[in-house]
């Protein structure tokens, strides 16, 4: 396509150059002939302009200097001389070559071109030229609108556009300008019709309308001015920034109506003050007193409304505004903070040993800063669980369609924050639990109707903080669990003895055991005999716990209790012989002494009376098969596990310790009651105990012992 135009241009250029030659020769004879000078200039001008248009950029660039010189000649600032004519003639030859561009002898041409250009430029810088030079600085209208600078911020502008009455006669349609503004961003546009006269006085070809526009855009003011570029001189245009899109105090509301009117110049401040004493709304008061017109008030109100909406939106946006950082970097940061915590505790230990006051002061300062740094770093890893929640909406919708059930998902506490790694690992268990609720829990609409429930079932998904834990609840208003059915099934599967005495809670927790599934028919949603035990495993891995509450016919609630973070925990450092262990502090209730006497009183039973309560305890020394002699006084650390108090007997409680959890290598993964390891301040390694698992294991060991 373009080639056609290029050919047409070439042809035209040849003609122009021939004419140019003739003109130049004539000019040599009559150097003062303005008309001929004009012809030369026009020819150069056309070659330059059209050349650029059809891709002859070299021609355009080269001709530019020639044209500039002839423009000076035209205005009498440079006189026509023989050298100028010679130079121009050789320039013509060069242009011709460039246009035909055979591709031969280009290097040689370039040298000549450069020499000619230089000569023309020398003429321009010659002293006889007056200094009002720059002809190229005139604004070029549309050429600038290609890639306008973009503000990241949304800025809100108040634009007042009052075209002059005769604007229609310049072929301008103001509506098109308004539409262009709309293309820049959301606009509130209100026409001001105050000056439209009565029929008897109206001139139908004049524009009586003005516009007040509130525009929110990421573009800058120039983009707005560009819209009005053709009418700049034939209108009254004011553009003010009224909101810069920055964070604002949530308390400070946008300006009052009166302020806006004063700022717009529609009203002066004194008059506003005089009117303000009344009781009515400011707008109607002002209109009633005839100070401002109704249109002006409405335009101002529109501004108020626009900004309020924008700010509201922005506040919502800002809460989710974020920087994306690769997770890896964050993990690195957490690791480094972990190391720092370790070093810091070593520093604390050392300073305590040296007992030097100034060193202790520094150590304390470092301790405080490290704790803050730790908390801040951890909070960076915290994410609202909402993103995970919202994924389930689709799941619920699709599943309920598949199963012919009507179910709504209600989520609460989407803003609750959890450690990123916890959230990631929570996804699958939650999907499973929701599936269970939909598949096993919620009944079909007809069954629900028959039971007097609404046809539409509800699954409620909520999250809330509680201390260092987060509770996530999945509850449904479905059929609920039937303890008898579960019990029967467990007996059938050989999970419990047929005469086992179990509380309702214990029965429910049977569903979490491997190989348990209550669904009578296997659907493609759930019920393949795996599931709840997998959920249990995942939650355990997160150091969390599961609790079920259910009522037949009313529904089931499953509560997951999860730690806020998994990377650093507060731990209790304990010692058996010369080995150190960490117990997660969250579960621990208290530490009491256990004397040989106490043990003797219990007649060989691992029971201690703590504040009148009999608490079973586990002797870790025995369990971990430590050698050596039992000290005179031991310590029982009591913890609450699955609602029961359990004691753990150790030699010594060393103290509280901020624990950076390091996962164990693959070799040790199978050791269930150790959840990880940590490096102590002095460089020693301590194992982190999983108290829950320990208690379970002790129970099994005890059972085995009893059976023997």
């Amino acid at each position, binding site marked *: 396509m373009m080639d056609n135009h290029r050919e047409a241009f070439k042809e035209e250029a040849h003609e122009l150059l021939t004419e140019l030659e003739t003109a130049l020769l004539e000019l040599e004879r009559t150097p003062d002939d303005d008309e001929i000078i004009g012809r030369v200039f026009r020819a150069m001008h056309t070659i330059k302009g059209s050349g650029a248009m059809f891709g002859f950029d070299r021609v355009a660039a080269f001709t530019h200097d020639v044209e500039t010189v002839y423009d000076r000649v035209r205005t009498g600032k440079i006189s026509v001389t023989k050298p100028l004519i010679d130079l121009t003639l050789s320039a013509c030859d060069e242009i011709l070559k460039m246009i035909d561009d055979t591709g031969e002898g280009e290097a040689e041409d370039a040298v000549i071109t450069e020499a000619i250009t230089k000569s023309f430029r020398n003429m321009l810088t010659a002293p006889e030229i007056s200094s009002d030079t720059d002809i190229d600085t005139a604004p070029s209208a549309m050429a600038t609108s290609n890639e306008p600078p973009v503000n990241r911020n949304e800025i809100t502008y108040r634009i007042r556009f009052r075209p002059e009455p005769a604007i229609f006669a310049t072929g301008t349609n103001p509506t098109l300008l308004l539409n262009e503004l709309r293309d820049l961003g959301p606009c509130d546009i209100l026409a001001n019709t105050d000056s439209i006269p009565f*029929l008897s006085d109206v001139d139908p070809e004049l524009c009586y309308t003005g516009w007040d526009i509130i525009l929110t855009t990421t573009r800058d003011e120039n983009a707005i001015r560009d819209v009005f570029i053709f009418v700049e001189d034939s209108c009254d245009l004011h553009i003010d920034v009224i909101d810069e899109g920055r964070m604002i105090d949530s308390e400070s509301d946008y300006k009052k109506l009166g302020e806006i009117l004063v700022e717009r110049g529609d009203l002066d401040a004194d008059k506003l003050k005089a009117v303000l004493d009344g009781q009515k709304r400011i707008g109607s008061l002002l209109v009633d007193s005839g100070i401002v017109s*109704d249109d002006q008030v409405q335009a101002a109100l529109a501004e108020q409304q626009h900004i309020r909406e924008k700010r509201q939106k922005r506040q919502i946006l800002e809460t989710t505004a974020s920087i994306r950082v690769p997770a890896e970097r964050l993990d690195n940061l957490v690791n480094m903070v972990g190391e720092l915590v370790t070093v810091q505790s070593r520093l604390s230990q050392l300073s305590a040993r040296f007992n030097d006051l100034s060193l202790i002061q520094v150590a304390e300062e470092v301790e405080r800063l490290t704790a803050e740094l730790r908390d801040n770093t951890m909070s960076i890893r915290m994410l609202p669980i909402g993103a995970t929640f919202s994924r389930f909406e689709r799941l619920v919708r699709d599943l309920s369609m598949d199963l012919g059930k009507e179910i709504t998902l209600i989520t609460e506490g989407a803003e609750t924050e959890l450690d990123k790694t916890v959230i990631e690992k929570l996804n699958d268990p939650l999907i499973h639990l929701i599936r269970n609720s939909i598949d096993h829990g919620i009944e079909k609409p007809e069954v629900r109707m028959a039971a007097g429930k609404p046809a539409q079932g509800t699954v409620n998904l909520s999250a809330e903080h509680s201390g260092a834990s987060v509770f996530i609840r999945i509850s449904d208003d479905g059929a609920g669990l039937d303890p008898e059915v579960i019990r029967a099934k467990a007996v059938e599967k050989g999970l419990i003895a047929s005469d086992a005495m179990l509380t309702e809670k214990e029965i429910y927790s049977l569903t979490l055991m491997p190989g348990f599934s209550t669904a009578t028919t296997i659907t493609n949603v759930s019920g393949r005999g795996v599931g709840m035990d997998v959920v249990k495993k995942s939650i355990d891995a997160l150091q969390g716990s599961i609790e079920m509450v259910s009522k037949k016919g009313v529904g089931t609630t499953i509560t997951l209790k999860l730690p806020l973070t998994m990377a650093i925990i507060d731990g209790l450092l304990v010692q058996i012989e010369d080995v150190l262990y960490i117990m997660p502090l969250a579960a621990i209730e208290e530490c009491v002494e256990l004397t040989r006497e106490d043990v003797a009183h219990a007649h060989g039973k691992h029971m201690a009376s703590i504040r009148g309560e009999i608490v079973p305890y586990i002797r870790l020394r025995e369990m971990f098969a430590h050698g050596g002699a039992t000290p005179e006084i031991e310590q029982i650390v009591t913890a609450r596990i699955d609602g029961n108090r359990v004691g753990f007997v150790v030699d010594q409680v060393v103290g509280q310790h901020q624990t950076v959890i390091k996962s164990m290598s693959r070799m040790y993964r199978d050791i269930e009651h150790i959840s990880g390891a940590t490096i102590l301040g002095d460089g020693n390694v301590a194992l982190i105990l999983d108290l829950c698992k320990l208690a379970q294991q002790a129970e099994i060991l005890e059972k085995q012992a009893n059976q023997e």
Partner: protein
Amino acid sequence: MNPFEIIESPDQIHLQVSGDISVQNAQACLEILRVFQRSEKPLLLDLNGVTSADISFLQLICSLHRTCLKAGQNLTISGNMPDTLKTILETAGYRRPKACSQGGDNPCLWSWRDES
């Protein structure tokens, strides 16, 4: 085709506007509006046939409305506001929450209720 047509019946006068109305035929429009407004009967404006209109037309109808209000004449737009006109009014910023300065307590001629 004449874009402006006046139909007079014993109890009202009807002005039918149709086609593309712009500043190009604004003069003609004004003349017919003046004739229309001179009638003593209730004035009924039928804009259903309008396919396009520019600011000049909206101004003229505003002017007509103002003139009628001052003279105590009854001017109404017949039927529902046509969709084409709604778009034109919204684009031009003529749709407003309240009547204009001249409107007083009367509703703006250009008002309509959005269907939910």
